């Protein structure tokens, strides 16, 4: 009888430990945010986004680290995964953000990505982890 009680306690302790370990592990190694699954908090043109940051004097970074949707013309394709939109916003695509589509100068694009902040050396806004939404 006593051994049965003992076994029950051991099993319960082990189960609690396993649950605790699971939560600790998932807290410590939670996955990175997935931009394509998050919805954008704002939709605007590249020019408008750049002006918001430029006029904020670099102090108000309300969009920093937020997911936004930006549209405009591609002014330059810097590298296979980097484009400039209207010369005002630099967009770095995620490794799978392009889905094999090709980008050309002058095309209209809409992208969704994480706004990193304002680069006051070049006076551009940087967006990374982007996914292509529309490309014409």
């Amino acid at each position, binding site marked *: 009888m006593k051994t049965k009680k003992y076994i029950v306690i051991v099993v319960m302790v082990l189960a609690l430990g396993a649950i605790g370990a699971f939560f600790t592990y998932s807290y410590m190694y939670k996955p990175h945010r997935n931009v394509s699954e998050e919805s954008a908090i704002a939709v605007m043109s590249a020019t408008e986004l750049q002006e918001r940051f430029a006029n904020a004097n670099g102090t108000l970074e309300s969009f920093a680290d937020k997911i936004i949707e930006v549209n405009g013309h591609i002014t330059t394709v810097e590298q296979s995964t980097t484009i400039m939109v209207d010369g005002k916003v630099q967009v770095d695509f995620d490794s799978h953000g392009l889905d094999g589509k090709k980008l050309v100068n002058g095309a209209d694009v809409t992208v969704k990505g994480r706004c990193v902040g*304002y680069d006051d*050396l070049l006076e551009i806004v*940087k967006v990374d982890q982007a996914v292509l939404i529309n490309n014409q």
Partner: protein
Amino acid sequence: MKKLKNILSLPLIILLLLSYAGNAQNKYIDKNGEIVFEASEKLFEEVKAETKSATAILDTEINKIASLALVKGFRFKNSLMQEHFNENYIESDTYPKATFSGELLDFDSSKLTESPADIMVDGKLKLHGKEKEVRTNLSVYKIGNTISIKGMFKVAPEDFAIDIPKIVRNKIAKEVLVQLNFKLVQK
């Protein structure tokens, strides 16, 4: 009389602006500069982050270099580490960027070749609201109209008033190794 002076100085200003624009071929720019920093300790989890969207501008006439990295652009393998880095250590909401501005010493861009040359850079690194002088050797070479700059240096968190809590102090190296790799294209 004063008005006349103003009118006379206007063309001068325009001329200055024009000559500035005319010097654009001295500018080399990289918008996708790579910066990696690492503060790993043996036996503990890797403390390492990387950005591939740093900006660097080199003016080969005055031999000045300026670089800017948005702190939120640094990515860690471990997302919780990235969160703690941004919120508790570097406070990226208050101090969103890290900048470096400096001068390449005894540098002559016309003498650059495809084989790397050692160039000393001297400048100020600014982050977390603090400034520190950094002097290090860079390896510089030129292929076509692209100047490549590679280098590394060490800084300490306390130089920038970044406080590491006691509980994690032995998991984070006292010195942070910063590596940079810029490919600057002539503009």
